[in-house]
């Protein structure tokens, strides 16, 4: 049986002195799973993703990733965990003055790979996302869809154990959305855990093996914490 890659135990998050944007999140995600994170705007999806890719610490509760409790981990320990996570941001967060090639190569270089180990995989990945001939283009000269594909290539180039994608098909056409989903599914079949935040019902419907995480008003709409809602199943009422 697969182990647990993410475990939240009564996790809460607030920004500054404001109200809690996430409350009592209590769930576990298994290694190798494919999860969709859904919910209305303002439900706390982005905040939950920030916790997952270690851009925020929970203000209360316990949070474990890869079997290690990280809610109070020293910040010096975090880069090592972040390298095991690939993130596709909704706003792409590409470095504007770097070429598409350099943007995609960044995780490999940060991980300490030499140029000889970078060139081949990056060219291959750019070709896969259909940008082989745009390798030297800088993000401002790329379309939204092209930027999204560069962001996806960057997220998966280092073969992370956990891929987190925020609306990864939001700016691409149906054909490219299908290719992106195919890539994520293929990575998932190789053992990568995938978490996709999306409003795209079609994307959820096209991934029958995936499980659903639904957030509403900062609460997980799954009191059992087992996340057993198959796509398409009616969502339960919000937990009190």
């Amino acid at each position, binding site marked *: 049986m697969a182990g647990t890659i993410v475990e939240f135990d009564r996790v809460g998050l607030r920004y500054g002195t404001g109200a809690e944007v996430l409350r009592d999140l209590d769930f576990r995600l298994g290694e190798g799973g494919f999860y969709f994170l859904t919910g209305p705007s303002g439900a706390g999806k982005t905040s939950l993703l920030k916790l997952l*890719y*270690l*851009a*925020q*610490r929970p203000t209360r509760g316990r949070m474990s990733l890869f079997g290690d409790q990280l809610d109070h981990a020293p*910040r*010096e320990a*975090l*880069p*090592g*965990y*972040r*390298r095991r996570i690939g*993130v596709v941001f909704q706003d792409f*967060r*590409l*470095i*504007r*003055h*770097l070429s598409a090639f*350099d943007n995609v*190569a*960044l*995780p490999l*270089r*940060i*991980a300490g790979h030499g*140029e000889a180990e970078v060139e081949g995989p990056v060219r291959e990945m750019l070709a896969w996302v259909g940008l082989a001939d745009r390798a030297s283009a800088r993000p401002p000269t790329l379309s939204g869809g092209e930027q999204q594909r560069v962001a996806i290539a*960057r997220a998966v180039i280092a073969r992370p154990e956990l891929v987190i994608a925020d609306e990864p098909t939001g700016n691409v056409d149906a054909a490219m959305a299908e290719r992106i989903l195919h890539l994520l599914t293929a990575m998932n079949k190789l053992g990568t855990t995938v978490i996709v935040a999306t409003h795209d019902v079609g994307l959820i419907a096209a991934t029958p093996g995936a499980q659903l995480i639904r957030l509403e008003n900062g609460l997980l709409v799954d009191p059992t914490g087992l996340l057993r809602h198959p796509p398409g199943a009616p969502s339960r009422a919000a937990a009190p």
Partner: protein
Amino acid sequence: MNSFAISDADRRLIPSSGLRGPVPLLIAIMTFVMVVVAAAGLALANTGAVIRAGVEHRYSIQIADGAAKAPAAIAAARAQPGVGRVNQVDPAELRRTLERWLGPASAEADLPLPAVIDVDLKPGADPAAVASAIRKAVPSARFVGHRTSLAPLLKALRGLTLLAMGLVLMIALASAAAIVLAARGALDTHRGTIEVMHGIGATDEQVVRLFVRQIAVDALLGGMAGAAAAGLTIALIIGGAGTATMLAGAPPLGWNDAIWLLMLPLAIALLATQVARIALVRALRERL
């Protein structure tokens, strides 16, 4: 790890501002002021040292109540061990000196003149023993070291030298503060890039290395430009004014001083690098 050894790919992450940014200009101005002030301080110190060395072993016997007692004082001085040249100042020369204050009256025959005898002691001689012997022979004689006479001047020179060194330190501190601001500014400018790097798993050291290298290069370029301008200015001043050389009997700045001054831009670059590193590490620690 060597902070300067970064790859071309890493260098592309933070585009170099080169000489366009404020850091090289700032460092150039600071270095210029620092080198000029340090040169002035060294020149004052050298002048003081030359004057001190010139009068170190030189004394005067002053007998206010007449030249008749001079031979006894001279004999007493010469009898002491370690006494070198003993030479009475020509009364005519004394009168010429007094003429500056008294005018033609200094030439009047009945003007009482003190006897002034220059005495040079050899290194190791005991001035107190010589003074004692002279006073024993001529009780009204005063045995005065030239150094004592020049003490106020030497003290002023020493004070000015210390002031110059203090100013150099203050400029260094101001430079350090400016570098801290520049480093934090650079972090803000490249906030997006840093967030992406951190998000992907870059360590603080990897981020800091990118900035420190650029600041070090900028500081070195600025420091060298400032030092070159200061060197030119100093050369023009020294070349145009030989007063200090004339007074001190030696050039105000030697080759050793030039080496010290040339090390200042390197010291500034090193200071900038270390200060920037500390500032950057502290600023990054404020983030997750």
